């Protein structure tokens, strides 16, 4: 047991001034920071801070498949391992992977796979390792977003990036990007992701209760949020090359 220092479920999820508990308007995202190429040993890597969420992702591949019987003779395989650190949540998480982590790993894998050209890599695997070191609601969306960045950083051919964000409903109002408290105490949570090459949704889960018109409104809200997150992803990728260019200029190398 741990000592109870605050109530897990606040009575109200909206402040008197009409804003959310963390001061956001209904359609605001939490602050998001992304960076690529943060783990030297990996073929590609990325880090994201999305509100209080802090997540690392690294990509290895194409490489030999272990265990060998998983290899496919006509195409490569994508394997995703989503894990949470023991200290990333309020009650210490057990170190061994649980059912939730395995399900999320699968969901993230399924939503990233459509953008890859796995048919070009028979007999090999791409492995994505995702480590959530601090969690505060919406880790599967942040993980998907950062994993797509790590794939791009690894130079893996992709049809497009993948971006993910959640929308939902708290105390009767629809909102974008639920925080940990809002996710636990709210009424509905709808994480979605988009594959930009065809503008279609590749991840869609829903928990809670909403009406059909509300679902339609949620999907429109999600599109706006995904556009914003996508631009941040592009910025993070570009920053790496701007940095390389600046270093090359300092060394007096050719710039064009």
């Amino acid at each position, binding site marked *: 047991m741990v000592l109870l220092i605050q109530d897990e479920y606040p009575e109200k999820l909206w402040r008197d001034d009409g804003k959310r508990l963390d001061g956001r308007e209904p359609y605001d995202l939490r602050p998001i920071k992304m960076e690529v190429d943060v783990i030297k040993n990996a073929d590609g890597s990325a880090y994201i801070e999305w509100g209080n969420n802090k997540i690392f992702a*690294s990509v290895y591949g194409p490489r030999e498949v272990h265990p060998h019987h998983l290899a496919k003779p006509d195409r490569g395989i994508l394997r995703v391992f989503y894990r949470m650190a023991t200290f990333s949540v309020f009650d210490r998480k057990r170190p061994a992977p649980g059912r939730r982590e395995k399900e999320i790993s699968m969901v993230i894998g399924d939503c990233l796979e459509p953008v890859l050209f796995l048919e070009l890599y028979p007999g090999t695997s791409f492995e994505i390792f995702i480590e959530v070191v601090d969690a*505060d609601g919406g880790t599967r969306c942040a993980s998907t977003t950062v994993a797509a960045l790590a794939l791009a950083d690894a130079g893996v051919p992709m049809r497009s990036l993948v971006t993910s964000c959640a929308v939902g409903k708290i105390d009767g109002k629809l909102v974008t990007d639920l925080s940990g408290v809002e996710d636990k105490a709210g009424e509905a949570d709808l994480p979605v992701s988009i594959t930009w090459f065809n503008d279609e949704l590749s991840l869609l889960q829903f928990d809670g209760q909403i009406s059909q018109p509300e679902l339609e409104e949620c999907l429109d809200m999600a599109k706006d949020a995904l556009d914003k997150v996508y631009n941040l992803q592009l910025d993070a990728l570009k920053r790496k090359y701007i940095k390389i260019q600046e270093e090359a200029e300092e060394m007096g190398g050719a710039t064009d």
Partner: protein
Amino acid sequence: MMDIKRVISTIEKSYIENNLKKEKRIDGRGLWEYRDFNIKTDIIAAAEGSSDMSLGDTRILTGIKYDIGEPYPDMPDEGVCTIMAELLPLASPLFERGPPDQQSIELARVVDRGIRHANCIQTKRLCIKENEAVYIVFVDMYVINHGGNMIDCGGIGSLAALISAHIPEGKWTEDGPEWTGEYLTGKDIISDLPLPITFGKIGDSVFLDPNLPEQLVSEGRLTISVTEGNITSIQKSGVTTFTPEEIKMLSKKAFDIAKDLRSSLDLWQYTTKIE
């Protein structure tokens, strides 16, 4: 991307060896020099203390969590501290998925033994009620990038995380433990700081803080954990052998190196201030 493989080329191996004979290292350091380090603390909102320590290319995140449980019968008024390490497969192609392997258990054990045998964790302060309730403090290390010498990086990172701790203070009531409204900080639960000092050996050359290529070439390491006055644990690992003279020399060196390191680390600066 760093060039990292299971097998290191003969050319690179002899290059490292020949340079060491001339007391030179491939990254330009002297034999008894640490790589640059960088520490950030209290970076994980969900943890009761945390650190992000890098030593050269090695980077380890450490988090503190706690639980309240019954004490061991032979130590009825003492809390417990357990240390765990995970070599994340995202950190290196050398690490594999699955339950903790020998390497990660060695990392956790060597860090644990250095801390356990020093007057470091104030276990009596971690008691809420004798025979009833004590704190179990978890120190969990996650390797984010493997660049050699994880033991020193993890050991110092663990101390920094413990110093940054802010654990809700419990008092005993009829209904069991309750929060007093105060926090136990690093200053309450930590006293001496045992620093692990790791030496590598290649051929007949010994040197401080092996980086990854050196670690892959070397056949063994010697870790000596020292407080200001005492040696608290020693671990020889790998298949190499050390002469008794080398051990004597290195144990003396460990104190000199730890003294400088202690002042440049200035670990107590990471104490969390509670408003």
